[in-house]
């Protein structure tokens, strides 16, 4: 046990000492800070849009559109009387950033509901706001044409606020659909990256001991299985440490977003709404459990790959089957998050090689019965034992072998005879 501990510590210390560890440790928070700043800047610039309204209608409808837009707080609208070159001059103003865009209103707006908007940037929020504002206005005008009192129309138009709540595992949590989709998506990406990166780390560490020939000294004092375990846990500890750094810095940055917003001239109150989705402890536990399981499963395979190769190029080739197994889950992320209850998703969460990513995604999306969670955990555990057993045998023979890469037949023989 003392020996395994020494191996874990060496693996951890040497890896944390590399500059790559610190580059990625710093890059994470920088990226996250960038996202926060980006969002704040977006909320600043996105708040009010300068829009010109070209009135080509015969009834002076443009003025009412301008009033309605200005009333919505999202737009600063000005009227541009229709003329022969008005469109060209407006285009120039858009080009020189004096205007965000311009709206062309004709009689069609009231008759068939058609209008035209030209802008340098067709953001979804802007379009929706335009459609909403124009829609209300047109309804009002059409009702007036039928003789309805405008005040009644105003009274009748009411905005619906739909409070979205998700039912997850029999409990209502205040979280909307977009948030839970994003959480699941983000988790899946994180799992994929972490398992791949740190699995490959295990592989290159095994390979290093092989190519530097230090392996023979090591196996003369440590059992190969102890060595493999030490490597896997050492690399695993490094990735946890990395996550920890990221999580802490993300937390700090989030709590600082008020001051950041003030510094950028935004209203901190607006910024408070863009919080991280609430992640319940159970989801966190599932995430950690499956990250651990997936990491153990894949790094055992990566260790075997490292042991059977004699140089980097060979390892890159030999790791492909393992990477492809992992890619299957990665490529299925969209399918999983969109419909976590589908047969496809259920199948993926019961296959040991895809379950480390599929199950946390389904769980987060809230459509997984607890017994299925338990089942996929059991399947994962059994797979870890089996795969580690096979990997350890390949490892034991492979680490002392140099020369050409073993064929499939030879690998089977190693596993049988080791």
């Amino acid at each position: 046990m003392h020996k395994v501990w020494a191996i874990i510590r060496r693996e951890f210390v040497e890896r944390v000492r590399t500059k790559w560890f610190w580059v990625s440790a710093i890059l994470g928070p920088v990226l996250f800070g960038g996202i926060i700043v980006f969002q704040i800047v977006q909320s600043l610039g996105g708040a009010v849009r300068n829009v010109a309204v070209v009135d080509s209608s015969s009834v002076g409808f443009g003025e009412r559109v301008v009033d309605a837009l200005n009333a919505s707080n999202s737009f600063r609208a000005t009227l541009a009387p229709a003329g022969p070159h008005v469109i060209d001059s407006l285009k120039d103003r858009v080009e020189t950033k004096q205007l965000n865009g311009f709206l062309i209103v004709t009689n069609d707006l009231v008759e068939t509901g058609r209008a035209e908007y030209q802008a340098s940037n067709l953001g979804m929020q802007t379009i929706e706001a335009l459609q909403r504002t124009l829609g209300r206005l047109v309804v009002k005008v059409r009702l007036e044409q039928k003789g309805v009192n405008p005040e009644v129309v105003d009274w009748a138009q009411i905005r619906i606020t739909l409070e979205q709540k998700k039912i997850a595992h029999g409990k209502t949590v205040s979280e909307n659909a977009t948030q839970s989709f994003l959480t699941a998506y983000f988790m899946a990406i994180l799992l994929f990256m972490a398992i791949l990166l740190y699995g490959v780390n295990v592989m290159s560490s095994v390979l290093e001991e092989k190519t530097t020939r230090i392996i023979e000294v090591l196996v003369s004092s440590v059992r190969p299985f102890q060595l493999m375990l030490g490597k896997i846990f050492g690399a695993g500890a490094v990735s946890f440490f990395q996550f920890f750094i990221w999580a802490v810095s993300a937390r700090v940055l989030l709590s600082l977003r008020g001051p950041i917003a003030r510094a950028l001239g935004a209203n901190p109150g607006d910024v408070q709404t863009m919080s991280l989705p609430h992640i319940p402890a159970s989801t966190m536990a599932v995430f950690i459990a499956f990250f651990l399981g997936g990491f153990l499963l894949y790094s055992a395979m990566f260790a075997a790959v490292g042991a059977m190769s004699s140089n980097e190029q060979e390892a890159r080739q030999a790791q492909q089957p393992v990477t492809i197994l992992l890619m299957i889950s990665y490529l299925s992320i969209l399918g999983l998050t969109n419909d976590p209850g589908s047969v496809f998703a259920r199948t993926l969460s019961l296959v040991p090689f895809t379950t480390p990513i599929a199950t946390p995604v389904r769980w987060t999306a809230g459509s997984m019965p607890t017994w299925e969670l338990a089942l996929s955990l059991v399947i994962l555990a059994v797979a870890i034992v089996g795969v580690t057993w096979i990997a350890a045998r390949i490892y034991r023979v492979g680490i002392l072998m140099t020369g050409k890469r073993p064929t499939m037949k030879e690998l089977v023989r190693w596993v049988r005879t080791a």
Partner: protein
Amino acid sequence: MSDPVVVDRVSKRFAGHTAVDALSLTVSSGIIYGLLGPNGAGKTTTLRMIMDIYEPDEGSVRLLGTIAGGRTHSARIGYLPEERGLYPKMRVLDVLVFLAEAKGVSRRTARVRALEWLDRLGLGDWRLRKVSDLSKGMQQKVQFISTVLHDPELVILDEPFSGLDPVNSQVLRDTIVDYRRRGKTVLFSTHIMEHAEQLCDRLCIIARGKKLIDGTLAEVKRTHGGQHVIVAFDGSQGAAQQVFSDRRLVAKIQDFGQQAELELAPAADAQEILRGLVNSGARLSRFELASPSLHKIFVDLVGPEAATAAAVPGTESERMAARA
């Protein structure tokens, strides 16, 4: 105290090729034992079986009185493998501490001893440098320190002198001798006979996995008897070759150019050869009656075999895979 290493009729086969064939040897306590043989003779395979890195197909190895194997005894054994290696990116001191820890030495003790050894071998200033900053000779020394850092009672060295310059070679020889003086046991393999002749109390010559001879140096020389003469020239050799080719006087000759080792024919007189050489006009710098050198014995024993042993059928992976 029982013998530290007892190898009993071990065999090791790799697909279609017998690397070690029913080899037995016994290393008794407190001696320097040399395992000699040409390339591909099975020296490394034998040492690996002793260290429990390979399992023998047949036969058994007893280490330090038990059959538990090298890994169990790793705290009492120092092993320097043929293929040297250290972590190039680690600091010298860290590597030494780690390798000692892997053998079960506590961290603190390992640190203290590593610093002692680094100072002793003149590497004290390098302790915080990366291994890759060191010259090859320095790395060899670090590797040697890692072999003996845990103060083992048995040291097994596979080709310890390969790649060392004369100065470092001498440092290593001194250390090995010092080790024996302190009552430790050293087993080492080599194909350089001079080292074996200088160091070994006992030796064993193997070729193609089989033992050809073993015993003390004196015993080996005695069994491989005959009277020998070493001749060295100082420039001109004159007609010396005529004397050498006289089969009434010289049975066998190892001609090194400026020096030759002659095995006298039965009943030949060395004085007669000396007379012949002087008369031939050769200028001699040395004429010495000697017991046969180990080199001579080695070449006589394995000469014909060494040329053919190098061709080994099958790839390495096939051989590896075939091991049970």
